[in-house]
């Protein structure tokens, strides 16, 4: 059990290193979820319109269209007076949008012509564009009502203008938006695991070599297997700690944001997040072994940082790829570490059922990968170049 002595020493040693602690406890579990999840969810809020929410709309010359004002009021829009200089106030953002009722409006309505309305909007301002979308949607409804009234007045069945009746039947359980949010979870888990073990793996291998402390260590009466195993378990502890903290922070983060906007497609409740963590857990030893092996392969801390920095691209690759391509979960993809966890975790968050075979393949493939990597690490430690 000598490896445990190595493990304990590495943990104590690295708990005294601010850099390791920052990346393990803050960067992966707190900063990345906040930056990425926060901005993503904020943009969802931006694009989704809540028609039940009461808001104000500035209308110039509202007295020219009393029925429209009444319609808007019934649809949760309170009409207020427009400022004198409409364009300037929309441009400066004092008013998000202003609806202007033209002088000809009521006369045109009465004469059966198209009644002119002007919607002043600042498209460069996201809030203004969002407000305009809400009003346009409402005006469209009002327009259709007026259209059918006009037709009925002239004895025409309004249905005559509906030559096509297109019914869209969306069979996907998840919408595109849900997919993006769902792939965020595996990304955050994998990222936090890598960041959690990143500096410890470098410090305990390349760092130890650079400090010249590896040479006396390896001349002690203990086997290389104990050394490798000890350092591996220490890395595993940090990787797991970072991942567990991420579970907590993701849970808290998604309490703050409107998951109901996803219409129940995406779930970020406690049981789902915990289940996702369990599905991702074979990655803990895999990523620890990967970090250690790469760090053992390099000759200096700087080189290790470069290689492990490149490793960061790996958790991002499926995240971005899956945005553009729909990759079906197959037996082959389930045997691949990281990719399989991406697919499993997405399914978990989207509430899809997961075949037991897929889970089994993912576990076996990932743990098998970890064992191979550990074997490689031990080989590297047994070579003479480890101290040269």
């Amino acid at each position, binding site marked *: 059990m000598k490896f445990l002595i190595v493990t304990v020493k590495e943990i104590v040693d690295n708990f005294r290193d601010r850099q390791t602690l920052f990346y393990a406890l803050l960067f992966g579990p707190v900063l990345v979820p906040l930056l990425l999840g926060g901005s993503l969810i904020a943009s969802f809020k931006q694009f989704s319109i809540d028609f039940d929410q009461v808001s104000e709309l500035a209308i110039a010359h509202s007295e020219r269209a009393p029925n429209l004002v009444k319609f808007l009021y019934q649809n949760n829009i309170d009409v207020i007076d427009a400022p004198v200089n409409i364009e300037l106030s929309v441009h400066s953002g004092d008013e998000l949008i202003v609806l202007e009722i033209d002088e000809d409006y009521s006369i045109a309505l009465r004469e059966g012509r198209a009644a002119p309305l002007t919607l002043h909007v600042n498209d460069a301002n996201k809030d203004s564009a969002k407000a305009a979308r809400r009003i346009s949607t409402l005006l469209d409804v009002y327009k259709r009502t007026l259209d059918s009234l006009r037709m009925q007045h002239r004895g025409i069945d309004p249905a005559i203008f509906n030559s096509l009746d297109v019914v869209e039947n969306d069979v996907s359980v998840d919408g595109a938006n849900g997919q993006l949010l769902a792939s965020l979870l595996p990304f955050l888990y994998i990222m936090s695991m890598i960041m959690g073990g990143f500096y410890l793996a470098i410090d305990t291998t390349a760092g130890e070599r650079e400090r010249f*402390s590896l*040479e*006396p*260590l390896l*001349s002690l*009466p203990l086997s290389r297997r104990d050394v490798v195993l000890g350092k591996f378990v220490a890395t595993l502890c940090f990787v797991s700690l970072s991942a567990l903290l991420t579970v907590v922070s993701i849970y808290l983060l998604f309490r703050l944001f409107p998951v109901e906007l996803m219409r129940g497609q995406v779930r970020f409740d406690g049981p789902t997040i915990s289940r996702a963590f369990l599905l991702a857990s074979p990655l803990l030893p895999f990523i620890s072994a990967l970090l250690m092996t790469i760090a053992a392969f390099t000759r200096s801390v700087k080189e290790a940082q470069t290689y492990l920095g490149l490793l960061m691209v790996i958790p991002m690759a499926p995240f971005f790829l899956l945005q553009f391509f729909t990759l079906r979960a197959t037996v082959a993809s389930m045997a691949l570490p990281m990719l399989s966890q991406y697919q499993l975790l997405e399914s978990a968050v989207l509430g899809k059922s997961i075949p037991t075979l897929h889970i089994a393949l993912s576990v076996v493939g990932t743990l098998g990968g970890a064992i191979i990597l550990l074997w490689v690490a031990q080989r590297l430690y047994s070579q*003479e170049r480890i101290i040269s």
Partner: protein
Amino acid sequence: MINAYDLQKGFQREGAKRGEEPVLAVSSVSFTAADGRITGLLGPNGAGKSTSLRMLATLIRPDSGSASIDGHDIVGDVLGVRQQLGFMPHNAGIYPRLTARENIRYYARLCGLSANDAKQRVGELIEQLGMHDFADRRATGFSQGQKTKVALARALVHRPQTLMLDEPTNGLDVMATRGLREIIRDLANAGHCILFSSHIMQEVSALCDHIAIISEGQIVMADSLEGILTKTGETDLEDAFVRAIGLEPCPPPIASTNGTQ
């Protein structure tokens, strides 16, 4: 007790092509270091001192030749050698975020001492090497002398019979060097076998009972200080050394020295 017989070690040059001959760092190293004696391995930089010590410490395997430490073969019985041997490489290599005490205790535990024994042994070494002032301070910012003491304590923690020190006085001031010499002398008097590598003549002549001169990967002369002076016909070690490294290497001793394996 160290017995080395015709050790040879080559390294592949950095960026070497396939099939390129390795560069010989050590081509023929044979010597004996007896218990209760301080043996100096004297040679210029790049002569093969560190490579020889690394082979004896089982960190690298010799390409040919053999050696034993207290009867344990350096290739066949690696763990046996390490149990008998305390090795202090040429950089102290202590952990800066651990205290001196924690550094030593870590090695004690790795060498198989129980938690209690380790605590007691670390206490003894702190006493023996006079480390009270800084025993519980973190090693960041330690002076070279303090670092060397910690590294020496680590090498001694499992009470090895044989001690190998690779240029231990590097970077030490006069007082620290004197202190270290006394400690080494005491250890030899207590019956330990001490192998001490250095490129500093005064160091070796002041301390060593027996001197092996190494040049370009070969032991060119091995004898007591007086023996070396007599053989070279010089009056001080520096002149003797210059003359010795200009000589033909002495042939490896007959195979009987290899009998301890």
